[in-house]
């Protein structure tokens, strides 16, 4: 149970469930493969026949438009057949268990499942129970992981910053509930980023997070000093309902990214955000649309990175 379930005995990637424990060679292979797909997505005919005849099921137990769409586009550009299943609205409400749903779809000769679920570990559970030869990509499980998002962030960083070994990276926002942050931290530390910081109030921090190899800051002025890459996290509105934060306004004042705060970072720092953005909560429009923002590039590269992951998995 303790071995990394996404890699087989020969060190090949079978599933993409988390960035934790992925060898650097695998990470780099994904990023390099994605480079070759960026060209495809910029062509007039945006299609390659690599996955022709393959069936890919988008299995979303939690609603998501954006992530599901990017996976769908990526699969279609690889000429695969894509089936979108909004499971939250169908079988689950009829009482079918998650594994029964997966078994039923496997019987329809699925080659790959792209899974989104509100519970941490859902993708691992599915990966453990699918037949050999069926691949699982985790498109977000609870607070645990969102590996393709982290990989497209790494791809974007590499495009703008070249060398990971000289970077200071700050992740800003709701670390406690963020699957994106966890996947980013593992990817950044594996790729050799020497300094990864997290900046957040104590109510949005996860206990012992420094064991993942990050430094914790609670003050934006200190945390942003000399930072080259700012990874913003989305702040969910429901965080304001409990006692974690008093108001969106106070959060924005102390942790929202404005031009003034951005000026504290390195001059050529870049700003990333996984979307969808809450303008005026975690990020000011002037920054989101400003010249240091690479947020729209992330979206474009996201397709290429997901094409790369699908191609590599199907080849193994």
């Amino acid at each position, binding site marked *: 149970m303790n071995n990394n379930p996404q890699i087989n005995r020969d060190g090949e990637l079978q599933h993409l469930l988390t960035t934790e424990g992925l060898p650097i060679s695998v990470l780099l292979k994904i990023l390099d493969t994605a480079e070759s797909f960026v060209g495809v997505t910029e062509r007039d005919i945006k299609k390659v026949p690599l996955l022709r005849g393959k069936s890919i099921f988008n299995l979303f137990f939690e609603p998501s438009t954006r992530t599901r769409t990017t996976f769908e586009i990526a699969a279609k550009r690889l000429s695969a057949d894509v089936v979108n299943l909004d499971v939250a609205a169908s079988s689950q409400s009829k009482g079918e*268990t998650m594994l029964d749903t997966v078994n039923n779809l496997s019987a329809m000769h699925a080659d790959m499942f792209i899974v989104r679920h509100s519970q941490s*570990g859902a993708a691992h*559970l599915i990966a453990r129970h699918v037949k050999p030869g069926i691949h699982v990509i985790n498109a977000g*499980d609870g607070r645990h992981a969102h590996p393709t998002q982290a990989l497209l962030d790494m791809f974007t960083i590499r495009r703008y910053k070249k060398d990971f070994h000289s970077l200071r990276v700050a992740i800003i926002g709701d670390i406690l509930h963020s699957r994106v942050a966890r996947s980013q931290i593992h990817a950044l530390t594996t790729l050799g980023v020497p300094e990864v910081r997290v900046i957040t109030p104590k109510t949005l921090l996860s206990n012992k997070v420094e064991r*993942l190899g990050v430094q914790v800051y609670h003050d934006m002025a200190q945390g942003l000093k000399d930072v080259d890459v700012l990874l913003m996290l989305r702040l969910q509105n429901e965080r304001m309902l409990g006692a974690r934060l008093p108001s969106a306004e106070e959060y924005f004042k102390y942790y929202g990214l404005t031009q003034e705060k951005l000026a504290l970072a390195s001059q050529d720092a870049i700003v990333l955000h996984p979307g969808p953005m809450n303008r005026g909560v975690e990020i000011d429009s002037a920054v989101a649309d400003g010249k240091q923002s690479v947020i729209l590039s992330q979206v474009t590269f996201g397709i290429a990175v997901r094409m790369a992951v699908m191609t590599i998995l199907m080849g193994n």
Partner: protein
Amino acid sequence: MKIHIKNGHLIDPKNGIDVIKDVFIAAGKVVAIGAEPSNFKASRVIDAKGLLVFPGLVDLSVRLREPGFEYKATLESEMKAAVAGGITSLACPPDTDPPLDEPGLVEMLKHRAKSLNQAHVYPIGALTQGLKGERLTEMAELHDAGCVVFGQSDAPFINTRVMMQAMQYAATFGFSVWLRPQDVSLANSGVAHDGEVATRLGLPAIPVCAETIALSTIILMARETGARVHLCRISSAEGVSMIRAAKKDGLTITCDVAVNHIHLSEMDIGFFDSNCHLVPPLRSLSDRDALRIGLMDGTIDAICSDHTPVDEDAKLLPFGESEAGSTGLELLLSLVLKWSLEMKIPLISALAAITTEPAKILDIDVGHLSLGAIADLCIFDPNQYWNVEATVLRSQGKNTPFLGIELQGKVKYTLVNGSIVYEN
């Protein structure tokens, strides 16, 4: 029936016996140890050469799942599992459906258990009606029906005042109150220890202070009310320190730990192993080590199996949605042996934590092999190895973190009231 157990290595923690001696049983009692009484005609001779003979185990927390949860386990299946694990007396928490809050339910359970003629069952009565933490049960009536002690299982009180009154009322009759310290609002909907693993896996967490804050309330209230308090399933190093200090101050409290928690830590969750979803959560390695030390220095009095059979479907879910608990009746003895070997503790001391000490906590006259004692005993081969597999477990619950692991020590015979109820 007269039974002669010969050539066995007799271990009786209460009487400090740890030598090869024969045991003679007649009319359900131990009638002689060592030399054969005159005119003793054994109808059965058990050759226990190379085997250990000790009092049957007393387990302080066994969920039999009846009434209400028969799809998870039945009284029959779990009583068979108990004797297969060498357990001859067991206390069952009141969290059945309906909870054990009425004399009729308790009488029914006692009667059903008795008719199965296996281990002795000691129901823990509910402290509050429906375990809702709001209104007291008829404790004296429940006691007459067969409840030996009273508890809340994992259910909270609606406020501290009810808790205090429950303890005062129990103290009126001298009844022992069993509580698992947990502040419900701090535990919230957590499923794992608030530490490195929950952070890594993104699991909702239960901080140590959920245990220690509740513990300090219970300790202060035990002092205030004079109630006899037993603390169930302690899980943290800080909790152990607080109990140690309270005992040093002269407070008469007792405490148990679940056997999984002296072996495992949060690390064993690995990649979301739902068999490691337990209540209380498996905590850090240093917490586990403190529990081990606490047992050795007497801060923790007893080890229980915290047997909680869960059906397979309820474990085949993402970690946070899976049902907590593990099967334990048939693993308790092997896991206590493993602990004693790892910590280099004499077996006689280790066995005290599952015989003499829990019997004292329950205030029942079992767990020893004095002359005239009820002949509840276990004959055990410490050198036989076995694999923990679903097919070998008699319990209906196959859920354990030790699934697939090889363990040492196998029960050969279990005797209750001088009758052989299990033989392997």
